[in-house]
């Protein structure tokens, strides 16, 4: 019993530190427990262990109710000393599926909205709901935060919102995987957000105005000799701070989404895991009830985090465009 609790603890630790921990211990017997992959391979037979890392992590195989699908492995492409492995993984597949779902949903909704418009009536049913949701994001999230002429950013922010939302929701499906629970996915989305924010700044402020957001000298410095000393000094101090400020925003976006999606799944899996540890009906019922509650919370969080990512991106774009 205590060994199993220790096992869970190790898993939690591994979650925080996995590669480092694996390196530190490096012992074969530890490796099999810490490293999800091998346990999963071994777990084709009866196993009473739940490997959380394996469930939330990426892998080159997809578990379906009809068996495990092994994804093809491609030779990594070397680009300037870095090996870029473009082989599809579980998260790639679920992300592509999410994109497919979002694309299909809105292409069909657009068609139905257009048809309804031509008939001179508002869109009904699912298409109407999708239209209302898109409009809500546009009116309540994009326009008030991006500032004047913010409508041009609506397509990007709308796509971002629904893409993240569907990825979050797919993770709650049985046999589903949360692509947004992978730091690579959220980091890539944050990189795109970073580019959009900075380019919006360049467009709104011009080259000189944009450079002012990096090399910032506050107004009201004394002139003369004092100013001549203060200005370079301030530049030396402020420039790294401004650059860190620019990078911290997308970094926070990436970590927030990743951590929220990961934390919820770890919690659900840990609660379900209690059943297998204690092997008791009462614990099973209690932990199932708790896990259900957490799942409902996760459903809310899936919407919330998609909203927060979109809202903050809109706010950052607005801040960037307004800064002088």
């Amino acid at each position, binding site marked *: 019993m205590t060994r199993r609790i220790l096992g869970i603890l190790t898993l939690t630790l591994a979650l925080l530190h996995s590669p480092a921990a694996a390196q530190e211990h490096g012992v074969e017997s530890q490796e099999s427990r810490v490293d999800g992959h091998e346990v999963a391979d071994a777990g084709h037979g009866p196993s009473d262990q739940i490997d959380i890392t394996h469930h939330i992590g990426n892998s080159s195989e997809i578990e379906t109710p009809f068996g495990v699908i092994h994804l093809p492995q491609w030779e990594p492409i070397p680009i300037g000393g870095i090996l870029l492995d473009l082989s599809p993984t579980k998260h790639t597949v679920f992300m592509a599926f999410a994109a497919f779902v979002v*694309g299909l949903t809105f292409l069909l909704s*657009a068609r139905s909205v257009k048809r309804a418009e031509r008939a001179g009536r508002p869109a009904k049913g699912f298409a109407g709901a999708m239209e209302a949701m*898109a409009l809500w994001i546009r009116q309540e999230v994009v326009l008030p935060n991006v500032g004047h002429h913010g409508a041009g950013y609506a397509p990007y922010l709308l*796509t*971002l919102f629904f893409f993240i939302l569907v990825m979050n929701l797919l993770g709650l499906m049985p046999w589903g995987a949360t692509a947004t629970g*992978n*730091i690579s996915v959220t980091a*890539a*989305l944050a990189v795109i957000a970073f580019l959009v924010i900075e380019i919006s700044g360049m467009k709104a402020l011009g080259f000189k105005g944009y450079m002012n957001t990096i090399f910032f000298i506050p107004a009201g410095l004394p002139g003369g000799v004092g100013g001549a000393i203060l200005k370079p000094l301030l530049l030396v101090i402020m420039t790294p701070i401004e650059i860190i400020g620019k990078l911290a925003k997308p970094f926070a976006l990436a970590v927030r989404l990743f951590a929220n999606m990961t934390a919820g799944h770890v919690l659900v899996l840990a609660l379900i895991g209690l059943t297998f540890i204690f092997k008791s009906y009462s614990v099973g019922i209690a932990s199932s009830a708790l896990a259900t509650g957490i799942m409902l919370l996760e459903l809310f969080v899936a919407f919330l985090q998609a909203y927060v990512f979109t809202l903050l991106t809109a706010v950052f774009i607005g801040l960037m465009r307004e800064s002088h």
Partner: protein
Amino acid sequence: MKLTFALLLLALTATPAHAQGGPLTVEGGLMFWTIVIFAALLFILWKFAWPQILGAVEAREQALEKQIAEAAQNREESARILEEQKKLLQDARSQAHSIVSEAGAQGERERTLVLEKARQEQEELVARARRDLAAERDRAIADLRREAVDLSLAAAGRLIGQRLEGDADRKLVLDYLGTLESQN
């Protein structure tokens, strides 16, 4: 703090991805696919979905904006016209005022002129009347005096029993009357 975390992240990602790595492993391939898939989705939706879904609202918004601009223009126009009308009214009023005051002044001038003329005429009339009166009186006095002389002469002639008809006598009485007059 942030730097140590960044270093930790770097250290975590730098470790060779044995098996599939931990949750903090940044997989370049997955990042690549994320960007590709997101870009494709964005392109498709931007081209074929969002304009149709947001089109009606955007059109309405633009129409509204246009209407607001038009209303502002109309308001400006009407304000301008109102200002013009006010100016015209003001002009007309001042013109009317000047006409009225001009007429008043004219009337006043006419009145004084007429009055002056009337006064002059009256004065002339009075003066003539006075002159006539004075002439009449003088004549009356002269008549009276002649009568008086005749009467005195007649009375004096009866008194002294002789006819006093000479010019010398008349002169005597007249001289006497002259002294009376001077005595008075």
